[in-house]
């Protein structure tokens, strides 16, 4: 499936973002856009600043300078849970599920992000609360089914297999009903066959109307699934373009692919 999304509507705008931790500049004047409905790959060698970029987009870090706008709203000083409600969700490179909760409950926590009722409704079991709870459960089950985890719904997250845990992370992120979903190395630790399945899944996620930002090391996967790619190195953006353009970009080859070519004998 290679019909590139041609919507030009910008969903997220990273504008000249710099982050410094003490003397270290993790991101240095990085700018790029994510367009609605696309799968954007964010690649770069280890330590290039990919995850930092994720963290600044989800409000974990505040940029030292520059700004990020999501669907027209500036994210500066916004609380992390508010950013989630605005429509940015993410998964974690090192799986961070709620281990002692079931798969279904994990997804429900994400789905709760949009429930309006709270304490008093729960205590009085108002009709509104019952309805929202039922809707959340239905949505959560549907997402588990989508991820192929329906049978594991009542399993504790910690007891799921590695691959299922990775998929559950994606389901939980999708449950928050985001516009943009950021996947941080979702294929880490997967074998080639599992990666093919995952590539397919990522496309299906996009086809459901989500915009996807993908951090990934595996070049084949990134080239196969993304519409556009942004390449970081040492905190700077060194290239941006379609997979074909990136493949032929000399700077990228030098920085990233070149290493692989040397390795491949």
């Amino acid at each position, binding site marked *: 499936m290679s019909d590139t999304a041609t919507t030009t509507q910008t969903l997220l705008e990273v504008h000249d973002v710099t982050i410094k931790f003490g003397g270290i500049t993790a991101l240095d004047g990085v700018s790029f856009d994510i367009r609605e409905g696309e799968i954007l790959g964010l690649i770069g060698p280890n330590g290039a600043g990919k995850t930092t970029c994720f963290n600044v987009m*989800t*409000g*974990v870090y505040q940029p030292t300078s520059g700004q990020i706008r999501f669907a027209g709203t500036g994210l500066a000083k916004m*609380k*992390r*849970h508010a950013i*989630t*409600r605005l429509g940015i*969700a*993410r998964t*974690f490179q090192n799986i*961070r599920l*709620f*281990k*002692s*909760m079931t798969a279904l*409950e994990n997804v*429900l*926590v*994400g789905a*709760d*992000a*949009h*429930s309006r*009722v*709270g*304490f008093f409704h*729960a*205590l009085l*079991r108002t009709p509104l*609360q019952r309805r929202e*709870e039922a809707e*959340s459960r239905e949505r959560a089950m549907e997402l588990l089914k989508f991820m192929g985890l329906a049978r594991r719904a009542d399993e*504790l997250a*910690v*007891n799921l*297999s590695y691959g299922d845990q990775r998929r559950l992370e994606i389901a*939980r*992120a999708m449950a*928050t009903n985001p516009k943009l979903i950021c996947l941080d190395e979702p294929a880490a630790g997967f074998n080639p066959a599992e990666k093919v399945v995952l590539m397919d899944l990522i496309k299906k996620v996009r086809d459901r109307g989500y915009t996807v930002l993908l951090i990934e090391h595996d070049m084949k996967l990134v080239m196969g699934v993304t519409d556009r790619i942004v390449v970081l190195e040492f905190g700077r953006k060194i290239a941006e373009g379609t997979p074909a353009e990136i493949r032929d970009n000399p700077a990228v080859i030098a920085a990233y692919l070149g290493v692989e070519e040397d390795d491949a004998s």
Partner: protein
Amino acid sequence: MNLVPAPVAATFSRIGARFDNRPAKITLAVLGVLFVYALPLLNIPLLTTPDSDFGGVLFSVAAYALIAVGLNIVIGYAGLLDLGYVGFYATGAYTVGVLTQYHWHWPFFLALPVAIVVTMIAGVMLGAPTLRVRGDYLAIVTMGFGEIIRLVITNTEWLGKSGGIAKIPMPPTIGTPPQPGEPGGLFGIPHISWSTFPNVVDVGHETHFLSFTVLDAIPFYWLIVTALLLVLLGDKLLKDSRVGRAWEATREDEDVAEIMGVPTFRYKLLAFALGAGIGGLSGAMFATRQTFIQPASFALLLSMLFVASVIVGGAGNRWGAVAGGAVVAYLPERFRGFTEWRMLVFGIALIVLATWRPEGLFPPRRTRRAKAAEAEIEELEGDAANV
């Protein structure tokens, strides 16, 4: 465990098992509740404390259970180690003391809700600045809070200083007002006496329904058990909703919970306020039952016993908290016959419990299920099964 909490908790867990419309379960639940209410009248051999008034013991058992259920919300659900819980207990007790006796003369049942609200406000006031620190730091700050409350009371004229507040009125008796030698109330309920078997109904020993006097602790027990059952119901409704999930997620991984859209600070504050309110409720009951409170009644040691109740019972499980509170309140009374040795026996009993059931008497589902899964994996390992 063939001591008191086992049957009590078993009955309770039947109630909590689920409110579906199966009549058998409802019948069991009703019977369980009836048993809990009838417990002080039944004089069950071995269970009944030989050396102290069983009604009074049951009152403190229920009071500790109530406290443990409240503290379980803070420690077990939200994962916040609160070592100053006695501060809330004291706040509830003193609010009642001040409102019903020391400065005003409100009726108890008017002062009770005010005590709960005041304690909840105290919880928010402590929580708002301190819930930003985590883990051990929170434990230290809360411990300081417990001591601050006690020291402030000791040094405040308005609160009676170290002399305390005496003659706190009891709740009003419903029915005939009590006279000397006449307990009043609506009607008398005879106790059961097994020594005169088979003629077990002891008409010479009656508890008068809804008659609150110093002579009989059983009506107080009924009052606090009612409060406990209501709190347990509310606890269940909250736990099985997004509130409970938000607490659990926050305890598991606060950062991730926040990124998944949970306003963690607000939920931690809610847990703190609710826990505080329940502690205040228990303190208010304590004040009206004891009729006398003083700062020394609210020592740091109590905080430790409250935390012990939650841990012994199984943090995160409301029935565990009930059982833990019951054990911690009951054992020292049961062993009163050992006189100066009783605290030693109590300590040994706690150590035995900790060794025998490290996750608590009734561990929460998460621990049980994780253990079951572990056992299953061990079983499968023989087949080298691999997922």
